[in-house]
């Protein structure tokens, strides 16, 4: 299989600029600055590159939302906040191939006439931020960033900006508020970031992996990138597999890979040959699948067809023997902790979901609690500024729909049938 990213992620050799350049790094930027700007955008559009941050929005279309007039300076915000539980793919790019990202940023900014870029990296990634800072400094020194990059007359400044521990800051308007020095509260839209974003300026927010794909697209052409994937999903994706599998990790895979193959062939199946119980396919917010549902193509549209999402392609593998109420309770603790508190359906809803799942798990659930959870979910979804409420409600609903009997048993037996542990 042809790969887009793995070539530069295989080991630490490509972390420094010499290693990266030694394998063709920054040649795409050199090519880009000799191309008309519009044709770079056109290649990305032809590539069918879908945003890799979880929502899967077509990157070329998003780029097209920036205003057509250049009267106001524009900003690129790189979303390196990677916070969705089960997701750890961008960390691999940041540690192994930071120059893939830096080159992607340079090309994107050149194509869209953006002169300042901020990489918003989650605060816990201290080592990753340091590696990225080094890469940015190396790129400045080599003339790939800064004034008159590669003699093109184009200026670009890139700044690494650390977050400070808040899941919500991965939501793009929250990222922007956090970058501006505020609490990470999402903004009501419109106005959309493309017209009023960071510092009041037109702003593009793209995920790390999305931008890291750009150099390959420019080097090899959008059509070739599109052909690596399947219809509507161009290229490859970094898939992270976690949980008790033989070979957890990040794998670059074509969009049309089968989810069962990801778990059993690529990740080696469950440790000790344990049977599979459930799979959360695309990060903790995506609806859970039962073991018998995983024979499905792992692309955005196929996953939507079975009522879930490819999301961030962070696959969490849950073995037989796991208490699903306990698993949901862990997730509900997370969302209640991370709700920013701005909208009451989310602030109150996530708190109640935590409380009710917690009491069911503790053997203190009451008859009607399951219906209460479903009712709460109905009152949370689509009623808030951002998607965090939906992100909490989707696992809650799907765990109940798919594993209802476990919830009922907890309530009827007044204890956890699994002995309260993982």
């Amino acid at each position, binding site marked *: 299989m042809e790969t887009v990213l793995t070539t530069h992620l295989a080991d630490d050799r490509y972390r420094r600029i010499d290693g990266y350049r030694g394998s063709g790094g920054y040649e795409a930027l050199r090519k880009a600055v000799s191309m008309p700007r519009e044709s770079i955008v056109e290649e990305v559009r032809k590539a069918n590159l879908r945003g890799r941050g979880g929502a899967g929005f077509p990157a070329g279309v998003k780029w097209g939302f920036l205003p057509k007039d250049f009267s106001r300076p524009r900003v690129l915000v790189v979303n390196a906040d990677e*916070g969705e*539980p089960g997701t750890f793919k961008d960390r691999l790019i940041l540690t192994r191939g930071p120059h893939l990202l830096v080159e992607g940023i340079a090309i994107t900014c050149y194509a869209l006439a953006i002169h300042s870029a901020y990489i918003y990296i989650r*605060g816990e990634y201290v080592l990753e931020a340091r590696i990225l800072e080094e890469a940015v400094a190396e790129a400045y020194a080599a003339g790939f960033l800064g004034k008159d990059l590669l003699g093109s007359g184009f200026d670009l*400044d890139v*700044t690494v900006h650390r977050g*400070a521990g808040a899941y919500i800051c991965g939501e793009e308007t929250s990222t922007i508020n956090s970058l*501006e020095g505020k609490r990470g509260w999402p903004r009501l839209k419109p106005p959309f970031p493309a017209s009023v974003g960071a510092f009041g300026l037109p702003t593009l927010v793209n995920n790390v992996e999305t931008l890291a794909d750009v150099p390959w697209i420019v080097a090899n052409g959008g059509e070739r990138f599109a052909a690596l994937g399947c219809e509507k999903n161009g290229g490859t994706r970094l898939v992270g597999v976690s949980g008790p599998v033989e070979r957890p*990790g990040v794998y670059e895979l074509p969009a049309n890979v089968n989810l069962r193959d990801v778990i059993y062939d690529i990740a080696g199946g469950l440790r000790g040959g344990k049977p599979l119980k459930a799979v959360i396919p695309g990060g903790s917010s995506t609806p859970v699948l039962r073991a018998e549902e995983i024979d499905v193509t792992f692309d955005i549209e196929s996953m939507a067809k079975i009522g879930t999402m490819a999301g961030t392609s962070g696959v969490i593998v849950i073995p037989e023997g796991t208490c699903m109420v306990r698993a949901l309770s862990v997730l509900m603790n997370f969302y209640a902790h991370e709700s920013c508190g701005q909208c009451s359906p989310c602030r109150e809803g996530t708190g109640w979901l935590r409380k009710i799942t917690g009491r069911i798990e503790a053997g203190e659930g009451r008859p009607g609690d399951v219906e209460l959870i479903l009712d709460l979910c109905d009152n949370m979804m689509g009623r808030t500024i951002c998607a965090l409420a939906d992100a909490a409600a989707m696992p809650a609903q799907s765990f109940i729909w798919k594993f209802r009997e476990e919830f009922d048993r907890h309530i009827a037996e007044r204890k956890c049938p699994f002995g309260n542990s993982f």
Partner: protein
Amino acid sequence: MSVVFSEAARAEFERLLSRYPDRRAVILPALHLAQREFGYLSDEAILYVAELTGASPAEIEGVATFYTMYNRKPVGKYHLQICRNLSCSLLGAERLIGHVSEKLGIRPGETTPDGRFTLSVVECLGSCGTAPVMQVNDDYHENLTVESVDAVLDKLRSEE
């Protein structure tokens, strides 16, 4: 007690200021810097960052308390942060938290009387493929077992 940046921190702060079109944007980096300089964000540190950035102390307080990584209270020399999210839990994070808690004689959220260790239970650290994971100050320790976490703690204890 008033606090003030060292010369190096002051220079770093000035460098940061030059990177943003708006002085307020330096608030998060300035709070990181203040925490590194002063160990934690005391009331005095909050006032100091407010003065430096031109924001009100209430605004700085609001930001500092919104984000989990800013400590408004002193933490131990080693801040042990164990992830309890799903991928880590599936691989024994709860057992690990219980073990560390017992070994150090403190519950999550507490600091050992000698001020060496603070134990925190945290949400996803983005290291699910190498779960379970514990962050000690800036560093990640991955693929942990009860034995390897003991080795980490023993090593930290011997470093004085």
